[in-house]
């Protein structure tokens, strides 16, 4: 019997929502880690019982949690209680919440600075993990996108983390600048056809690609146009909100930028706009139908400062033509007096037939569609503000 498990991160805890393949009745488990900001939870494609969660707090910093039983129990994958916290040589062991930026091997000094909001140089300071991306093949390998923007990797199930500092060190790091939500690395896409190729995105620096498993990186922002930066077509500085890819077509990328919905057909070498008839081309999430690589979803949001749906109507827009031609999906969604936002990591699709689409709102609703977006119903209505939504398709 197939089913789905929806992993929801909120401002005040995590929730696990499960259903059978019909996706009509739901069991709700949580809050897990009540009171903590849960930026992201994600399951391993190689072992669906292996889940990772980013737990953070302004008071007590970052925690990484791991479940090996599908979310029933969780633990911090660092040194177990009772074991020494130092090595036999007396060196402190790394811990699962220890994210330390690389320094220059020659001088021991920080690799570089980034720009502060006013353009002055500012040191990198770790804030939190925004996004966790487990390996497609190894449950113990996982990538973490963090604020201030950097990419870390663990190959031992989250116990130890190492920065892939070629990203910050490739040369453009000093030009990166924080967006309104901080300078975060929020998108990590692993290419299923090439384990050495990874795409990432940073607000507000742009998109980057590695072809050598993270050693070297290249900005891939040609074709992006951001009118709010001094050079609208600069190599870096673009506020990319989210990128999505269909696993069967890894050279095609879809991007929701601060403004503009964009598409690349050459793995990010160049981008062209596909906003078409959207009511506003601002938004945060973007995702791709599980079985139709040219069917994409966005949630248009009014901006710059409002960040709620136009006209108080919560509408998902779907394009079945790979962009430009969009239809509003409204059945089951509030069409008056709705002023919630849908954040960049708060949309996901399952791989059942028909494809399920899910998104969460800052008003605490998680909506699900079991028919590829034609109709929607809330799974839950009154959670804390939803930060992230992921879904696992279980067999």
């Amino acid at each position: 019997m197939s089913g789905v498990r929806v992993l929801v991160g909120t401002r005040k805890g995590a929730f696990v929502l499960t259903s059978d393949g019909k996706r009509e009745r739901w069991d709700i488990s949580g809050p897990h880690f009540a009171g903590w900001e849960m930026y992201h939870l994600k399951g391993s494609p190689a072992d669906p019982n292996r889940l990772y969660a980013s737990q953070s707090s302004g008071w007590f910093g970052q925690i990484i949690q791991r479940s090996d039983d599908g979310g029933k129990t969780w633990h911090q994958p660092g040194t177990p209680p009772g074991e020494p916290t130092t090595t036999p040589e007396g060196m402190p062991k790394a811990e699962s919440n220890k994210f330390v930026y690389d320094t220059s091997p020659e001088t021991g000094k920080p690799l570089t600075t980034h720009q502060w909001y006013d353009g002055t140089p500012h040191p990198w300071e770790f804030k939190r993990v925004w996004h966790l991306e487990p390996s497609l093949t190894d449950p113990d390998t996982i990538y973490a996108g963090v604020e201030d923007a950097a990419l870390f990797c663990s190959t031992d199930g989250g116990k130890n983390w190492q920065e892939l500092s070629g990203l910050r060190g490739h040369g453009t790091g000093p030009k990166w600048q924080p967006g309104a939500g901080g300078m975060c690395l929020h998108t990590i896409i692993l290419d299923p056809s090439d384990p050495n190729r990874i795409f990432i995105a940073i607000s507000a620096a742009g998109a980057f690609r590695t072809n050598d498993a993270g050693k070297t990186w290249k900005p891939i922002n040609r074709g992006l146009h951001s009118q709010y930066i001094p050079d609208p077509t600069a190599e870096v500085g673009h506020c990319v909100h989210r990128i999505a890819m269909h696993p069967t077509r890894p050279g095609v990328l879809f991007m929701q930028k601060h403004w503009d919905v964009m598409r690349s057909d050459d793995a990010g070498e160049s981008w062209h706009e596909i906003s078409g008839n959207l009511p506003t081309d601002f938004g945060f999430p973007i995702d791709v139908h599980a079985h139709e690589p040219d069917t994409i979803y966005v949630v248009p949001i009014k901006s710059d400062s409002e960040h709620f749906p136009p006209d108080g109507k919560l509408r998902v827009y779907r394009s079945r033509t790979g962009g430009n031609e969009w239809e509003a999906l409204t059945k089951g969604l509030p069409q008056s007096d709705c002023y919630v936002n849908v954040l960049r990591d708060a949309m996901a699709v399952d791989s059942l037939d028909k494809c399920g689409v899910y998104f969460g709102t800052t008003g605490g609703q998680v909506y699900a569609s079991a028919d590829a977006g034609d109709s929607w119903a809330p799974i839950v209505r009154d959670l804390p503000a939803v930060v992230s939504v992921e879904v696992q398709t279980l067999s």
Partner: protein
Amino acid sequence: MMIRVTLPAHLRKLAHVDGEVKLDVEGQVSQRSVLDALEARYPMLRGTIRDHVTQRRRAFVRFFACGDDLSHESPDAPLPDAIATGAKPFMIVGAIAGG
């Protein structure tokens, strides 16, 4: 020396403890030796009270003992006798009392 330590609720939950923590601290009783003993006993708390690398107190965490705020004292300064003897607890507190 058996030292009593109180933790904020979130850290009690991480450490899987209900009430006060009792720690055996060898040598001089200071903030550093108490926190070293706490983190050795509860490794999951490493990084939540003080920075992994610099060992500096996190900005929104404060330390109190015998009614005094010791947050800005040297981490190596001896703690009051009442803490060293276990008569009173060393208090680790999340800053910001309300809101």
